[in-house]
């Protein structure tokens, strides 16, 4: 490292990833500012403040040692499962379904925390699993249980989107851990068979409706298809350059539902157009590519699985959210990282970013040492 005027701590940060991320958050804040009718309150300001707070948290996470991560994996996982059970119990006592715990100063959604936690615990599990056992049942069953317990608890809430995110994060980690490919293929085949069965038995009516509406949004333009239709109108009417900052009619006149949370991308696309959309995709591309590169560069199994799993978790958010707002996926309540207004999703994503930054730091150190 050459001598420079910036302190070494600052210079060491992965600016290649962070600067585009700041750009994305700024764009998110601008969109939220516009969605609030040209006011910082109630969305834009808290969005930026949260990002700042969670960025500090991510940097703190990135300072944590690899050994501490290893040591804490199971306790963190266990703690969050306990919280999920607690949420279930409170819900059962209160006589209704509930997803969050009221901590007084904020509401916490344990299922969100489980998304990075499942990656962490699986990375730890596959690191300690002797390599020859990877292809045996001992490589599969414990991991399946680790995923299955939180997924089942979350489905009970009921929160299909988050359960899928947990399963996705877990499955990608397992895939990268080197489990036999044919397991995934046969699991995929089984899923294709099981989906119709699950569709008619497991899903709640409103979930089933969402899927049906996704398949044919125009069938019920004022009911459940309304979200998708209005979102497509918002994105489509933006054109290449958008209608201009603060000129989005779909969001400002309240045609677009959830304009500041799940459908924030549509709000953005209406005012910033196709170019704004490309910018968002570009930033996520940078972030995820960086994350995967961090994973590939890391020398040990735990770190690489951890970083890749975190990247996959963020990717799942982005992919499902964007597919939903563009009418390629059913409406599931998954926000867009770094743009949607909401503390929990910002927390989760910044934990993922912080973890990847930690792995990045470990890599730099090992590089320095080697």
């Amino acid at each position: 490292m050459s001598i420079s005027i910036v302190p070494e701590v600052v210079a060491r940060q992965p600016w290649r990833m962070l600067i585009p991320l700041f750009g994305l958050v700024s764009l998110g804040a601008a969109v939220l500012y516009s969605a609030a009718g040209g006011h910082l309150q109630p969305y834009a300001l808290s969005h930026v403040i949260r990002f700042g707070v969670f960025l500090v948290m991510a940097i703190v996470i990135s300072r944590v040692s690899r050994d501490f991560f290893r040591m804490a994996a199971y306790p963190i996982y266990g703690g969050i499962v306990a919280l999920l059970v607690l949420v279930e119990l409170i819900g059962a006592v209160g006589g209704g379904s509930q997803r969050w715990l009221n901590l007084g100063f904020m509401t916490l959604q344990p299922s969100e925390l489980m998304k990075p936690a499942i990656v962490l615990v699986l990375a730890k599990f596959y690191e300690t699993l002797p390599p020859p056992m990877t292809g045996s049942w001992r490589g599969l069953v414990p991991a399946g249980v680790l995923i299955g317990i939180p997924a089942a608890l979350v489905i009970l809430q009921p929160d299909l989107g988050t359960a899928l995110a947990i399963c996705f994060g877990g499955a990608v980690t397992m895939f990268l851990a080197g489990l036999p490919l044919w397991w995934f293929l046969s699991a995929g085949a089984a899923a294709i068979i099981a989906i119709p069965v699950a569709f008619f038995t497991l899903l709640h009516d409103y979930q089933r409706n969402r899927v049906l509406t996704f398949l044919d949004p125009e069938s019920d333009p004022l009911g459940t298809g309304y979200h998708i239709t209005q979102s497509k109108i918002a994105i489509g009417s933006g054109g290449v350059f958008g209608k201009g900052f603060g000129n989005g009619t779909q969001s400002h006149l309240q045609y677009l539902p959830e304009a500041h949370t799940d459908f924030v991308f549509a709000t953005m696309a209406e005012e910033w157009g196709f170019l704004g959309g490309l910018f968002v995709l570009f930033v996520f591309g940078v972030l995820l590519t960086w994350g995967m590169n961090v994973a590939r560069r890391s020398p040990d199994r735990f770190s690489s699985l951890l970083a890749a799993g975190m990247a996959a978790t963020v990717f799942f958010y982005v992919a499902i959210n964007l597919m939903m707002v563009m009418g390629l996926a059913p409406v599931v309540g998954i926000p867009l990282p770094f743009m949607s207004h909401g503390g929990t999703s910002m927390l989760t994503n910044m934990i993922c970013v912080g973890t990847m930054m930690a792995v990045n730091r470990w890599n730099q150190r090992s590089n320095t040492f080697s």
Partner: protein
Amino acid sequence: MKISFRRLIPQTHSTSGTLRNSFDRRSLVVGSVQGGIGMLLAARMAYLAVFENEKYKLEAESNRVNLSLIPPRRGWILDRHGTPLASNRADFRVDAIPARMTNVEQELTTVAQLLQLDPVQRQDLGDKIDKARGFAAVEVASGLEWERFASVSVRLPDLPGIVTQRGFSRDYPNGPSVAHLIGYVGPATAEEYQKDHDPLLITPGYKVGKDGLEKVFEKELRGKPGARRVEVTASGRIVRELETREDTPGQSIKLTIDGGLQDYASRRIGLESAAVVVIDCLTGGILALCSMPAFDPNSFADGIGRLEWKMLNEDDHIPLLNKALRGLYPPGSTMKPMAALAFQLHGVSPDERVNCPGGYRLGRRFFRCDAVHGSVDMRSAIEHSCNTYFWSMVHRVGYDAIAPVARLLGLGQEFDIPVAQQRYGTIPDAAWKMRRFHQEWSAADSLNASIGQGYVSVSPFQMAVMTSRIASGHNLQPSLIYGQPKPFGPALPFTPEQLAVVHDGMFNVVNGHGTGRGSRIDINGVLMAGKTGTAQVRRMISRGHVADWKSRDHSHFICYAPTDAPRYAMSVVVEHGGFGASAAAPIAKDVMTYLFDPGKAWDTLLAMEKAWGGTAQERLDARYRQFVAQYGVGAPKVSAEEEIEKAREAEDAQPPANAPQPAPEPASPENAADEQPARAPAREDAGAGPAPSNGQAAPNISGATP
């Protein structure tokens, strides 16, 4: 992937090295999949935002911009002097669109509270909402004060489906006086919308003509709607106006009606159930077409409430019937001038004298006259309304000689005037009786018909036309639109001498010793000529005022003035008014006075109205308040418009209410001598019991002036 696939299945023993390799390869796969999905998303977005941009732009615009129609101002209806009979008044109104309401009951209750509607209004509102098809707007209230209007306006976000607007509503300055002539407006019904899919019809605040001229001239009066483009939120709240195109008001229509005369005549009718028609003897223009009592067209505009309907429907004076055009009455002695013309056409000399011994013997039957008139000629027969003269003459020339003249003068005819509906009544003859009752025409029928009894039934309007034709000697065609007088019909076959005989007779009725001398006018030398008529409703039980209003005679009077150069012709019919001279003639006298000296006429009327309890409008309002106090919300639910329609159809389908039923010849010969040449019910009554001695005599008592 193929390599790892082959390697991993057979190989159960992996090492950390192979796992590292596998991770590298698989992370590449995962990365490519992510990249692929990223490309897919970019492509999808390009498709939506670039290739389908136009379509979605349009959809966003149609979301954002709401085009709402501004109801056009209806054309005014003016009288001959340009005074409005129907105009528009700017007002604040509140409408409800049931299809857009989320909780109808709750919202209505809120609005009713804000507008301070009383329970009856609240009930009527509920009825209107029930009846409305979802898409159409229902008027909640109009003519609101600013404060009330504003109190609803600020609550609009909580009241989806409630619309407030400034607009125009129909105003009839003369209220009930023009009700039957002008009609009224109301919201379009679902049927009307189905017929004419003009979105204007379901625009809040838009009204269509429901009756009278409002209905006939609907097309001309309607105008072209304006449009307002507004930006609205998803919940329908208006954010701002984008552009506005003003409405084009409908054409105004100028009538031959004299608004002041119409109002005066209607109010002069007072508590009676009556019709007054005044026709201009020079042009045939209709100057007044009154039927009272009437409804208040102003209050009908927002629909007809239960209680309003109950009040109007239970009134035995039938305020919903336009008696001037649709009321049919036996005309009684007002037919005599016409009959006198017919006699002259058939060679009867006006100077031929007939002795009236107090009645006329036809075969074994004796028809009694009102008095012993002694020797009368044609003039004095008209003056004194001597039945004997007309019976003996009709017996000579036959009724079939009279019927064509009656039709020639307008009786039994329908006229080409733009009114919703007229009824033409009956001028009977032998062919008609055969067609209708399959019976031969009898000599008794001729006697009855000659004095306007029996099967004869005509409308007050026809009587006015007849009077105008007799007075002017021209074949006047009545007209209602100002500036478009109808050309005279084929010349009437009467010589001036023949007409003069009748004019002399009618002059003497009022100015000589005749039956109408109590109603003489003399305003700066203007004199009036006329003819009284008293038509039996049923056989007289006792003369004069009887307790039962419904069995009293109809009172008629036809007249014209000035006598030397006839200008105005009038007919007055007072239902169950008793003698023609006592009920109808005084009204005619005052209305005629109005035409020559309005100030004097108003003095007379205002004094009378004090005794009657106010103007027609005031009495109607008071009556409604009384009904509200008495029945509250207890009136049964009705659909008034449908009921009116049904009643009309029933009227048209049936013979006139006053028309006689087929009358069998008397069965018992011993009664025959006393038998009257009157209508069937009378005969049945006579057979049913002994009649008072003084009531038996006359089939027609038009001559008697108490």
